[in-house]
């Protein structure tokens, strides 16, 4: 790749570049513009964005509609709870441990599913069953705090310990950092590595992909490992922030479904889609809270809203927020030169979720 | 009296257009055939006429009534019955259940028992295997069952989609003879076939489909001797204009 600016050859890309730069700039100064509670909201928004994005690696790019990512999320949370809060291991080490465990689990799940030739429905069903099993185990296992969970204990603060007690800015910027690095990393992976470029082919038609010489089973498993491993990071971050972890807070099916649904609403094959959707939901939640809706009902209403939106989206065949955005920009600015075919960005959700597994 | 009238039929499969401006007419009592090689668009034509594929046409009418906008099953109920290439039998059900299902949608019009007897008379092999599961039948028997099922509703027109496909030559001859008999007994027939010899032997008129357009049409006798057929009809796109016999 020579001149990066040559990438900006269509109106869509130019508009996107402008928007992304503006958004990033805004994100960087946001904590200075708002009171501390809103910084916390910003952190949560970025967290939702992060975990949607990491789900999407396996779910959107490869088409593995997994409901097991919640296990990764929970692993990240419990990892820091057990290792750092109980045994005073450094939080970053705990984070890495969580990532590794989740990656291995993800790898194994995908491998197992492929080995047994499971199709998409059984993948969803099986991963759902696994997540429920994991939650059940956590609820009964005192090592994981059974029904009460594990509470925070510790005194250190600062980036080295991944903990800030009063000012959420630390969490905010750390999460933003993770989000930016992971997004850029994945984008580069998808564009420049053979592995990354193979994923949309696997999603579209595993048989043809195999005949092209792509190692389908291995790549699916690697993608799942990557996806789940990175999801674990979000779990670690939220655990440190909330300072209590239990099966009810980090191993629920609702969160697992929210990751999937959020990505689909945003546009499952796209880079920005899951991020936009994640932030959007956080904003919606905050909006509802501002109307003095009781907090129990806030989560109910957002869940219902999520569900209604994704149902309508799938029913009426639009691809999600990002494809709509792209269509809108193209309508306003024209298509310019024909962009190189990047399959994942052209996909409509209906065709996207068409991808079969195994 | 025109049974099926098609003018300007264009059919799409996904995003590609597989049939372009096709005109076709079948009159009452006729036996008309449509020939073409693999990929010419024969099945697409049938699916377009039946409404299983999105189709646009200037005219698409059956027995004088337009089919446009009519649901596929309602087209079938009007008497336009297709014996599909895949046979599409109810494999887990018996031969007799398959046959009876052929009349289930028009049950009030047709006395199923009486028709069943006729079918068994036409296909003694089916009578023998009445209680056998359709999935366990041989290729020829499956073809027979599919035809028998189609006949159960006393169709106004029977469309055969490659009845000879995958069958041994002797069986093919037998099936073709049966189709001829069905036509003689009064059912209008549209036979869609790759096997030109068999089709021409049966039909009085023929259409030739090539790459989604009608490349030739006319009485089978004349068409058989034509330039089109003499070329060996390999189905390539080398054709010039339409050859009318």
């Amino acid at each position, binding site marked *: 790749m020579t001149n990066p600016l040559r990438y900006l050859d269509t109106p869509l890309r130019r508009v996107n570049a402008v928007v992304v730069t503006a958004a990033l700039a805004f994100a960087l100064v946001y904590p200075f513009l708002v009171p501390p509670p809103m910084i916390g909201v910003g952190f949560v928004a970025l967290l939702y964005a992060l975990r949607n994005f990491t789900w999407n690696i396996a779910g959107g790019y490869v088409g593995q*509609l997994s409901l097991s990512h919640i296990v990764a999320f929970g692993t990240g949370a419990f990892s820091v709870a057990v290792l750092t809060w109980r045994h005073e291991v450094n939080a970053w080490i705990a984070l890495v441990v969580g990532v590794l465990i989740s990656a291995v689990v993800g790898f194994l799940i995908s491998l197992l*599913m492929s080995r*047994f030739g499971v*199709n*998409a*429905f*059984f993948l*969803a*069903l*099986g991963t*759902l*069953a*696994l997540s*429920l*099993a994991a*939650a*059940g*185990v956590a609820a*009964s296992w005192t090592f994981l705090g059974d029904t009460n969970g594990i509470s925070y204990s510790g005194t250190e603060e600062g980036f080295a310990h991944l903990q800030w007690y009063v000012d959420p800015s630390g969490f905010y910027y750390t999460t933003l950092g993770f989000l930016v690095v992971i997004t850029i990393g994945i984008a580069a992976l998808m564009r420049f590595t053979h592995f990354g470029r193979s994923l949309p082919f696997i999603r579209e038609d595993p048989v043809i992909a195999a005949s092209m010489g792509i190692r389908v089973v291995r790549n699916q498993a690697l993608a799942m490992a990557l996806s789940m491993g990175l999801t674990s990071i979000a779990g670690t971050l939220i655990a440190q922030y909330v300072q209590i972890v239990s099966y009810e807070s980090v191993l629920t*099916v609702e969160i697992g479904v929210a990751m999937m649904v959020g990505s689909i609403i945003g546009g499952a094959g796209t880079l920005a889609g899951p991020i936009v959707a994640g932030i959007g939901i956080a904003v919606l939640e905050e909006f509802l809270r501002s109307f003095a809706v009781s907090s*129990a009902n806030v*989560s*109910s*209403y957002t*869940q*219902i809203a999520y*569900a*209604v939106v*994704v*149902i309508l989206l*799938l*029913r009426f*065949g639009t691809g999600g927020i990002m494809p709509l955005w792209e269509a809108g920009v193209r309508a306003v600015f024209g298509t310019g030169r024909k962009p190189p075919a990047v399959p994942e960005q052209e996909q409509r*959700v209906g065709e996207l*979720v*068409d991808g*079969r597994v195994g | 009296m025109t049974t099926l009238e098609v003018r300007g039929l264009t059919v799409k499969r996904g995003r590609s257009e597989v049939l372009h401006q096709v005109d076709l007419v079948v009159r009452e009592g006729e036996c008309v055939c449509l020939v073409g090689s693999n990929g010419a668009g024969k099945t697409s034509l049938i*699916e377009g006429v*039946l*409404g*299983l*594929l999105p189709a646009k046409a200037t005219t698409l009418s059956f027995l004088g009534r337009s089919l446009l906008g009519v*649901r*596929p*099953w*309602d087209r*079938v109920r009007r008497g336009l*019955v*297709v014996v*599909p290439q895949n046979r599409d039998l*109810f*494999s*887990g*059900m018996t031969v007799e259940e398959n046959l*009876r*299902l052929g009349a*289930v*949608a028009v049950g009030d019009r047709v006395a199923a028992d009486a028709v069943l007897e006729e079918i068994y008379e036409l296909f003694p092999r089916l009578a023998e295997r009445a209680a056998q599961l359709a999935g366990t039948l041989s290729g020829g028997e499956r073809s027979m069952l599919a035809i028998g*099922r189609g006949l159960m*509703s006393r169709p106004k027109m029977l469309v055969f989609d490659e009845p000879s496909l995958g069958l041994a030559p002797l069986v093919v001859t037998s099936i073709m003879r049966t189709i001829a008999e069905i036509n003689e007994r009064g059912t209008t027939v549209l036979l869609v076939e790759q096997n030109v010899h068999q089709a021409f032997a049966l039909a009085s008129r023929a259409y030739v489909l090539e790459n989604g357009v009608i490349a030739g049409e006319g009485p089978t006798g004349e068409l058989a001797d034509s330039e089109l057929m003499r070329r060996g009809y390999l189905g390539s796109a080398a054709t010039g204009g339409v050859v009318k016999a």
Partner: protein
Amino acid sequence: MSTVLQLASTGLLQGLLYSLIGIGLYLVFTVMRVVNFAHGYFVLIGMYGVLSLGPKGFLPFLGAIVVAAAGGALVGYLVQRFLLESGLAKGGHSQLVITLSLGIAIQYLFQVLHPEPFETIPNPYPFEAFTSSGVTISAPRMAAGALSLVLVLLVSFLVYRTRIGTIIRGCSESLNGAIHVGINVRRVYRLTFALGCGLAAIAGGLLLPIQPVSPALGLELTIKAFIVVVIGGAGSLWGTVAAGVLLGLAEALGSLYAPGTFATALVYGLFFLVILVRPQGLVVRAAARITPRKSLTKVGVG
């Protein structure tokens, strides 16, 4: 020993109820190839429906169940007609996400409407518990098991001995074939889905006096319905019944050895293994057929 007998009896009766729940899902699964992730939530509709009607007495209770079942069937019809139908035509797995999201929407709707967890109704039946040979069965449990069995028999009669049942079976065997014989497959799909949901709602009504209702129950019931369908149903309804009873027994007897959520976790874990291994019969056939039907994109039915 009487504990085992007690548990076995309870498990058997509970299992029959699971069979009823499973039958509805099975019908939808085999006929339409739809995996209704919201099925357990239709049971919930039945439970909350009867709860809201607050029947006092046996006949009002039955009436409430009928009303709730009709409501469930109507919702099912609407879901199929307006949400799922066009998605089926496109193929793919939109119905997976749609039904999953629908379930969640239903769950949280009930969460908002009925914030109190664990609501139930007192015994509506005109008799009290049965006791014999050291085993005591409460009236609602007895009735639920018996009525479930009756309903399964009725469904079996419908599917195997009536004209409409033959039509339904035809659609499940070959959708194309059904169209080629003039069956209005769209209507059959809507009917089947409504029937499946209605049966689920009835099961919910029967379940209410036995098990207190909470919105979260929907997911658990959905999973149990799937367990019943995947393990059982080797081509016939009765496999589903057997699987339901098996599940009920396993659950009841399992509680002897593994208390609390660990037992449920074990069940889910086993289910995961079953999905991997997948016994022959229905599951293999259905799995082979759970591919988008690309030849029928414009029929509007899938």
